[in-house]
Each structure stands twice: as structure tokens, then as C-alpha cells.
């Protein structure tokens, strides 16, 4: 059987999810022996920019007309499109200010020169094209990426936890930062899979993986209200990585 053709792309973002792929140091050469990487600009200067792809892996958010065109082009070439990382899945940090006047922001940062720039409000991939698989995280977890490739190679759809970070954190028997220290920990409503990285280190979860499918936000909000934490402060914190997940 011929190896599946794969393209790895970055729209606007920090390239951290592509870097996670390159960070699979001891698996990297095995990985590229199982798949046929045809288009990966961050790693190669010889790419086939037009071939059909079995799998297209796309990181970053859509922030310009150029991003929109590239994404549509990638979608046309790909049988399966994977959104890689929180920016691709949810819009990420750049989407935090979606309500703001974009022209005003551009003027603030770049002055009048900036008004000619190709600049759009940040959007997640699924707002432009159909996405077949979401792999969230800021950045993604290495194991999740390798599991996704292994599953796709075997014709399976990978399954990721629906439960929140809070569940993982409790399994480690950590002291609760919210209940005991009154911190705005987003663990109860944030998608698990990071092995509760932050609360394991006594740092409150900032919600970088986006909303959990199976969470109980109302009891979380009630617990925060009991600590006297302002609802707007909570909304602002949640919007940092995943504006869509916030119900005002």
C-alpha cells in the first residue's frame, strides 16, 4: 500500500503546533517513514504545492484574505482536514477582541500605513471550511498528535477526552486552587488531555485548550460567585483562548 500523502500548513499564529511536530525528536524519523510529507514549508524548501493530499494538517487562525484563500485551496486538495491547535479549532488569542473595531486597532499599532494591510478579524478554520478532526491545545500535546496520525493510518477516528481538566487534576489529588485559594481556575470547564499541567504546578488553569464538551459551567460559576469573583472577569479570562466558548 502506498503511504498516505500529508501536508502540514500554518496560517496566522505562533507556529507552536508545527513545532510540537518537530519536537517529536525521537519519533520524527519513524514518523516520516510512515507518511509521505509532500508540503511542509516550515521544514522543507522543496514542496509540491498543488498535489492531492490524504491528510492536510492546518495550524493557526484565519486573519487575512490571504489566509482565507490558502485555507480554501488546502481544503480542495485534502480528503481529511485536521485543525491543529487552539487557534485553528477556536480562534485562539487573536480572536479575543472580535467585537472591537479592527481599523481602529490597526491604526493604533501601525499608524496610517497599516490601513492598507490585508487584515481581518480572527476566525477558526471551521468558520471558513469543513473540518474533519479537531486537535486542540495551545500548543497541542505531542501524544495526541502521534495518536491522531496512528489512528488515521489505520482508518480510525481518534477519540479525545470530553471531560474537563478538573477531572484529571482530581485524579492527581491536588489541592483545589479554586476552593482553597479562591483563584479563577478554568480547569472545571476546559478540555482535558494536558494531564492538568498547570494546577499540577500550583498554577491556575488559563483555559488554553478551549471548552470541555462534558462540563458543568453553572456549578463552576456558582463556586466562583461564592468566592466573590466578578462574572466579567471570568468571561474575559475564558475569552482569552476560545471566544466562542463563552456564554455571556
Amino acid at each position, binding site marked *: 500500500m502506498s503511504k498516505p500523502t500529508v501536508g502540514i500548513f500554518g496560517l496566522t499564529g505562533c507556529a507552536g503546533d508545527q513545532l510540537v511536530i518537530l519536537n517529536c525528536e525521537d519519533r520524527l524519523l519513524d514518523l516520516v517513514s510512515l507518511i509521505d510529507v509532500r508540503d511542509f514549508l516550515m521544514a522543507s524548501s522543496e514542496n509540491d504545492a498543488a498535489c492531492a493530499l490524504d491528510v492536510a494538517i492546518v495550524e493557526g487562525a484565519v486573519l487575512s484574505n490571504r489566509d482565507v484563500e490558502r485555507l480554501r485551496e488546502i481544503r480542495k486538495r485534502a480528503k481529511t482536514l485536521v485543525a491543529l491547535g487552539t487557534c485553528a479549532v477556536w480562534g485562539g488569542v487573536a480572536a479575543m477582541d472580535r467585537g472591537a473595531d479592527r481599523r481602529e486597532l490597526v491604526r*493604533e*499599532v501601525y499608524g496610517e500605513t497599516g490601513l492598507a494591510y490585508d487584515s481581518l478579524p480572527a476566525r477558526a478554520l471551521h468558520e471558513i471550511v469543513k473540518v474533519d478532526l479537531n486537535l486542540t491545545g495551545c500548543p497541542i500535546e505531542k501524544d495526541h498528535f502521534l495518536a491522531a496520525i496512528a489512528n488515521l493510518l489505520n482508518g480510525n477516528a481518534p477519540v479525545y477526552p470530553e471531560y474537563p481538566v478538573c477531572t484529571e487534576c482530581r485524579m492527581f489529588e491536588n489541592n483545589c486552587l479554586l476552593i482553597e485559594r479562591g483563584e479563577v481556575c478554568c480547569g472545571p470547564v476546559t478540555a482535558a488531555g494536558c494531564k492538568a499541567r498547570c494546577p499540577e504546578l500550583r498554577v491556575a488553569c488559563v483555559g488554553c485548550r478551549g471548552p470541555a464538551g462534558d462540563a458543568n459551567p453553572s456549578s463552576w460559576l456558582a463556586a466562583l460567585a461564592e468566592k466573590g469573583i466578578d462574572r466579567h472577569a471570568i468571561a474575559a479570562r475564558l475569552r482569552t483562548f476560545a471566544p466562542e466558548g463563552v456564554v455571556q
Partner: protein
Amino acid sequence: MRTVVVEHLARVEGHGGITVELEGDTVANVRFGVFEGARLLEPLVRGKRYDEVAPVVSRICSICSAAHSLTSLKATEKALEVQVSRQTELLRELLYLGESIESHALHLFLLAVPDYLNYPSAIALAADKPDAVLLGLRLKQLGNSIQETIGGRAIHPVNVVPGGFGRVPAADRLIELHGGLLQGIQDSDAVIDLMASLPEADFCHGDTVYAALVSPNPDSYYAGDEVAVVSNGDRSIVPAAAYKSLTNEASVPHSHAKHSSFRQKPFMVGSLARLTVNPQRLTGRLAVARERLKLELPSGNPMDNNKAQAVELIGDLDRALAIIEQLLRDGIEDERPAAVHPHAGTGTAITEAPRGLLIHSYSYDADGRIASADVITPTALNAASMELHFRRAVEQSAQREEAAISKRLEMIARAYDPCISCSVHLVRRR
């Protein structure tokens, strides 16, 4: 009119391209275009509480995420007058070194070396020279293991907070890193052997201005509060608080990265600039490495940044080992972060990210929320200097075919180790 275009730079982080216009053999115009989307992160930082800032600005860039986090914390701690412990300073420097080892190994072996050996990628290179690629991957992994242990994650560290660390790493984790570093140090000769075996690349020679932090401790380039600009034997000093006289930023129509110049001259930042400004670091193993690589300082060849990174890689391994030994000798204390008492204040921090000077400058209001922020990244500082060297390369190669010229342009761009998502400005113009 003839045009040489590198449409979309490969093997760099982010999205950028080069356009050179020639009239006959004379270069009329050079543009390094950054078309990475503008994320305009500034409005996000404004109004954020002091403990919410670093996790946002870290996302400017993945490869320099530790540098962004630590520079952000340093600016915040200056503004809010927070004193951190000596242990915190050492652990932060260790995290910085982990990032530098990872970044230099990634850049040299996976991005830059394939050019010299005529391969399109490290993956292709690995088919013929697996040892070279495996060497790079081993060192890169070592740098990442330092970042994971100290920062809690290899990209976008989570364990660094205002005043210190969420949880101080335990001694046994440092002992593991110590073992890894001893092995990494054994790879040093192989690094220099490989770099010394590469053909010389010298096609944009000329006077170059360098800017780097002056390190008060010869072993370390994490600390420091003054920048030196070295130009033709002249040395000017700029204190951190006066950084705007160094950068003189201007927006340009063709790029989302603002351009900088010092006394009307573009300048280069990064490893080569650091060694030029701090030659006293070049003793022992570093002096031997420099000699074997025939690295002359100051250099008129920006391609020498690759050699300088190799020299620094060795220095980073030695320094990381020394820090761990000191921490273990002094005994690791599971201390909590220093307390922060929010008040109005301003702080500017300048550090050396793997690819050069990084500046974060913040003003806080009385509640400890960001009133204004300014972030200037190494790739933005380098943009004007890159254009200067592209121009020189084309002038010095005008007789050649376009493909040969554009390959040279790409090699120069990669030697600068650009981080294009970093270069996109995110902060308010004042």
C-alpha cells in the same frame, strides 16, 4: 527592470518573502515582506492583570516562548518592584538556556545546514547523513527536556509566574537534567566538526553594525540592563529605559514588521552580535570552537551567525551544567513566589532571546492592570539589516542566474534565524 523574488520563505518560522528589483546590474529596490497576519495582540494585553500578561504574550512566538514569558515577567516585576530570589534567577536562566539550546539546534541542523549541503530539508538530509540530523535532534531534545522540567512545558511555559515559580523543580529532576547535559556536552565536538566541514558562505560582505546586551557576568547573557551598539570600532551604550533611541521604529507599507535603525544605520542582533559585544566570553572550549570555525570578530559576513550559534550552543551546555551544579550544591528550596503588591508603575526589560534582543516595556495602573505595553522582537529589529544584506548579496552576485541569487537570499534570511510571527508588531503606538 529585472525582479528576483523569493515568494514564500521556507524553513523559517512564519510567513515572509523577498523581492529585489534590478535595473541592469544595479539594485533599485529590496523588500523583505512579512505577510504573517497581524494579530494585534495589544488590545488583549491592555487591561490584563499582572499575572495574566505573560501567558498571552508568550503566544507571540512558540520558538521564543520562554524568552517572551521571562522578559514579560521581568518588565512586570520591575514595574511592580518585585524582588525575586537568587534561586529564581538561576532557574530562569536555566530555562532560558534550555530554550537557546533547543532553538539553536533546531535552526542549525534542521533549517540552516541542509542549504550548505544542497538538501531541501533535514528529512532529505537524514536519508544520506543520518548522524548529522540525529545529532541535532538529540541536542534539541535536551533543550526541550530542560524547558519541560523548569517551565512545565516545552512551548509556552506554564510554571513561570510573577515573583518566581508555581512549583520549584525537585532535586531529582535536576539530577536527571545533569546526566542529560553531560551526554550533550560529549556531542560538542561533533557539532563543531560538522559546522567546520561546511563550505564557506560569503556573498554579502560589508560593514555591519551589531547590537547586544552587555553581560555583567561573562558566563551569562541572561542578565544585563544596557545594550551596546558596535559599529566600525565605535561602541555606544544605550540603557534599557532609553530603548526607543535604539530602535527608532517606523511602519513600512510592504511589511507587518516595523523597521529599526540606530543613528540611521540598520543593525544586526543575535548570536553573532552577542559574541561581538561580549568577546570576553570566548575562553576555554568556546575559544577553541571559534578558532576551529575560523570565526573572525567583528565579522562583515552575517552568514557567520550560524558559526556563532554553534559556539554559543557549546557555551549554553556548559553554563546550564554549571547552574544545575550550583543549585544542587546550595540545596533546592521549595519556595513560593515572592508576593506582588499591585500599584501604578512602569518597567522595561531587555533580554537576549535565542535570535537577539527582546524588549518588553509595560505601564501598570493602580490596580496592577496593563495601561500600555510595547514589545519589540529580534526579527523586527533585524528586518532593516536583512534588507541591507539582501541588497549586498544581489550587488555581489548580479551576474549570476536568478535561481542562484534567490538561493543566496534564502540562505541569508535563514542565517538571521528569523521568527516571523514574532516580528509582527502587537503593541500600541504612542
